[in-house]
């Protein structure tokens, strides 16, 4: 039956997960949650998210684009200057 075997337990006996990896995963999720809450009320551009959250613009870009790749975020309209896209939370 799929999902019944647990070979990962054998790997756990052989390998340790590094604290840095756990730390960087925590950091990803922290930023992900900030972006989700930033976009909760209305679509925003990357600089708008950065300004109101205090995150660096390039950090927002990397995380937001990764979230878009996995369907958590969608592209919205462009701003009036045709410079930045607005982004909104994904529909599913």
């Amino acid at each position, binding site marked *: 039956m799929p*999902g019944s075997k647990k070979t990962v337990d054998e790997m756990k006996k052989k390998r340790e997960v590094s604290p840095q990896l756990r730390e960087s*995963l925590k950091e990803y999720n922290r930023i992900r949650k900030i972006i989700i809450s930033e976009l909760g009320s209305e679509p925003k551009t990357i600089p708008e998210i950065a300004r109101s959250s205090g995150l660096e*613009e*390039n950090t927002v870009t990397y995380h937001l684009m990764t979230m878009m790749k996995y369907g958590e975020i969608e592209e919205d309209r462009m701003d009036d200057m045709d410079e*930045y*896209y607005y982004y909104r939370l994904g529909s599913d």
Partner: protein
Amino acid sequence: MQKESGHAEYDVLVVGGGIAGQEAALNMGSMGYQVLLVEKDLSMGGKMLQLSKVFPTLDCAACIATPKVSETARHPNITIFTNSEMKDLSREENGSFSGILVKSPRYIDEHACTGCQDCEEACPVIVRDQYQYNLVGRKAAYIPFSIASPRVAAIDIDNCILCGACERACPADAVDFRQEKEEMPVRVKTVIIATGFRLFDPTVIERYNYRKLRNVITSMQMERQLVPTRPYNNVLRPGDGKMPDNIAYLLCTGSRDETLGNPICSQVCCMYSIKQAQLVLGALPMADVTIYYIDIRAFGKGFEEFYRQTFDMGVEFVKGKVAEIDGEEDGDLILKYEDVETSTIKEARHDMVVLSVGILANRDPENLFTGGELDIDEYGYVRQPAQLSSPASTSMEGVFVAGTASAPMDIPDSISSAGAAAAEAAGYLRKGMMK
């Protein structure tokens, strides 16, 4: 594959599954020879599978490369091992080569995996995606990229938190953390080296501030931004997601530069930059594109016409050497350059800079054979002792070279050189191998 004295036997070993390795393998396979193709990466295809369109025809790279990859994968005379390398290759008394094929674990049963990506969805880890040249993240359980061959998942064990989510999610029961490195002895009669090239790492040139200034990117990162499976929703600045409207290209980054130890021309950077300029204008019709160059090398069939076409499209060419790139508060970039025409130092402002990084030798072939029998040239490429009369020959009888393993070259030349390598290898086998 026949087995004799514990060795799997093939007529020819092709090392590297880029466009050159595939072409060589297909030629040999179609002549009836049994081919072993060993690819180091998780997928076949090499750099070409990551490109957008190709100069000078602007054909879609994947549309040409993908059918070739599938033809290679399906060929009855070709056996492919991905995520694998050869070690301890040495010549035996009868002229054959024996060695060990080392297959690294991908922790996925390749035959069971259906490519459904359920493991990827379940995986909670995010790390930088090397196939998108770090512009975006990927999971630790992942299909390398959409047109990968084989299109099966792999687990990046160094970045895995061992949560087991992928294993629980997989409907095909394909996840297997018990996999270990496998070693298989093989024997072949002839070898074709097609290990390709490395990209120049521009962090070496500190005054360009690559990585520190986020809107300075490499040509490979731009190449990814121009494909349908791009990392972003358009061509955008990694620094802040702005749609750039004034893009600069810096040709010869890491090439023709004695101080960097690479005095030779990379052969493709002029042309791929001209290609990208045309594609960028397709994606961003309002943008300005400026190409900073030393001189333009447009020597191939159709290249000069292709180059001239970019003038008509409004691309600006500046003969100038860029000394330094500095960043502004708003993410824009200031280029300090010597205008060669007027011999003056000038400054220019752009909102994105693309470094047209050069091609460097992949040093792997150096250690392919025991005993250091294979000669490498002064730039690290496989030496061609008879470049004019027998371009595919190497310093070792029965060992041939194809594609960018021997020198920088474009795709058509890589394919031609692979054809030559296959013809020379077949001739060698027909003659009854070593003299």
